[in-house]
């Protein structure tokens, strides 16, 4: 995978915002999970740069949040976020080219379905499996946390994410009605 400089800077800034917002920009639901505005950053990175940058921004961002947040390191959750970021960032792959101002209701539906799917795979499957491998205990609590994470993340991603995507598309759509002569 070759990244150009712009993508790298985008991932870095996304990761920094993700980390800071994960620590400060959320309403705590249960331990380790919150209704966090950090998810919006994943959506923006995904829209501007694509799936792998979104995944990296979420994964690195979660590591940063762990480093400055003071709740200890939970790499299982970082990887869960990475998987989720991959799904959220798929936007350009199914034709929602936010950079060119393309985002329709059809794309919003696909996006919502992928968000729920990504959450279930990321936190319902990958995180519990990794928790067993890395920490080998606390699976009951991880399940409770996983379900609350799925619900709260999906809520933020859909309720906040869809309007943000429409707004971003509108913002970038200024030049699209020009035709080349």
């Amino acid at each position, binding site marked *: 995978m070759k990244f150009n400089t712009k993508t*790298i800077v985008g*991932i*870095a*800034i996304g990761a920094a915002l993700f980390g800071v917002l994960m620590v400060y920009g959320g309403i705590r639901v249960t331990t380790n999970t919150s209704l966090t505005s950090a998810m919006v950053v994943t959506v923006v990175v995904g829209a501007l740069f694509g799936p792998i940058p979104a995944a990296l921004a979420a994964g690195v961002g979660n590591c940063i949040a762990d480093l*400055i947040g003071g*709740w*200890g390191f939970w790499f299982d959750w970082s990887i869960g976020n990475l998987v989720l970021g991959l799904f959220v960032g798929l936007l350009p792959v199914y034709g929602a080219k936010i950079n060119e101002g393309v985002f329709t209701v059809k794309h919003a539906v696909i996006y919502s379905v992928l968000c729920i799917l990504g959450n279930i795979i990321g936190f319902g499957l990958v995180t519990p499996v990794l928790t067993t491998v890395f920490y080998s205990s606390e699976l009951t609590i991880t399940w*409770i946390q996983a379900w609350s994470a799925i619900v709260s993340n999906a809520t933020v991603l859909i309720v906040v994410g869809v309007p943000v995507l429409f707004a971003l598309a509108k913002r970038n759509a200024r030049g699209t009605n020009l035709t080349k002569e």
Partner: protein
Amino acid sequence: MDERLFINLIPGNTFLDKLQGKTKVRIFLICIVALIATWDMRVILPFAVLSVVGLVSLKPNWKKMWGVFAFVIAMNLFNLFLLYIITPDYGLNVCGASTVLFKFTDFYVVTAETLWYFLVRFTKLMGSFIVSLTFIQCITPSEMAAGLNSIGVPYKICTIFSLAFRYIPDITKDFNNIKISMQARGMELDPKKTSLWERLKQNVIILVPLIITSFDRVGNIANAMDLRGYGKGKTRTYYSEHEETSNDKKMKYFYTFLLIVTIAVIVLRIVMPGEFEVWTPWI
């Protein structure tokens, strides 16, 4: 908000500050892996003590630090409280016994094993918190990139880490600027005059410009990096990485020893897993 984000851009002058980025990153990673990998108090306690020694040796600004400590201790205690509410007899699962000390009701009992487990868990999480704090206090973003690069992480990924850390103080600055300009336009953020829900909504209003300005800056930063020839070569050397000092050589023995201990702990755990996760002195 800004008191809690201590990112150093200039290295200090204590023992840990003067080490190479390479040494700092390796010691940090070994300590974190050791603290994650085990629930054995005999391993956790030395590492936790080591991290406290590291933090004290940095002579940090304790006045700034107390707020953070209070927050983290309160959060960890709250987590333990939640754990207790869900499974009061948690010690039975992980220590394999339950010695009842006293009962609130038949369900809410206090057992010695649960208390022991909570103590282990608290030490473990506080240990990894103090290790992270020490690490952040003694490292600068480019030293971190240099250190990660030295253990084989591709340098573009290292750049992501260092750039992200470098950008965090800017986020704080932007956040405060946006907040002040919003207040100048008449937005009431005083906690005494607005309800919690109102303030949450206002924080969302601050977030939107914060995200937009941050991503608008991507082009500028990327151009500046391109103009300086970033990403042309296959490898990268770091200006911040000074030559190995005699202290670095001494620390090399130290972290090799820690690495051997950590690997031994992990291998032992895989080869001979105990019947129960947590080692308890009286069982």
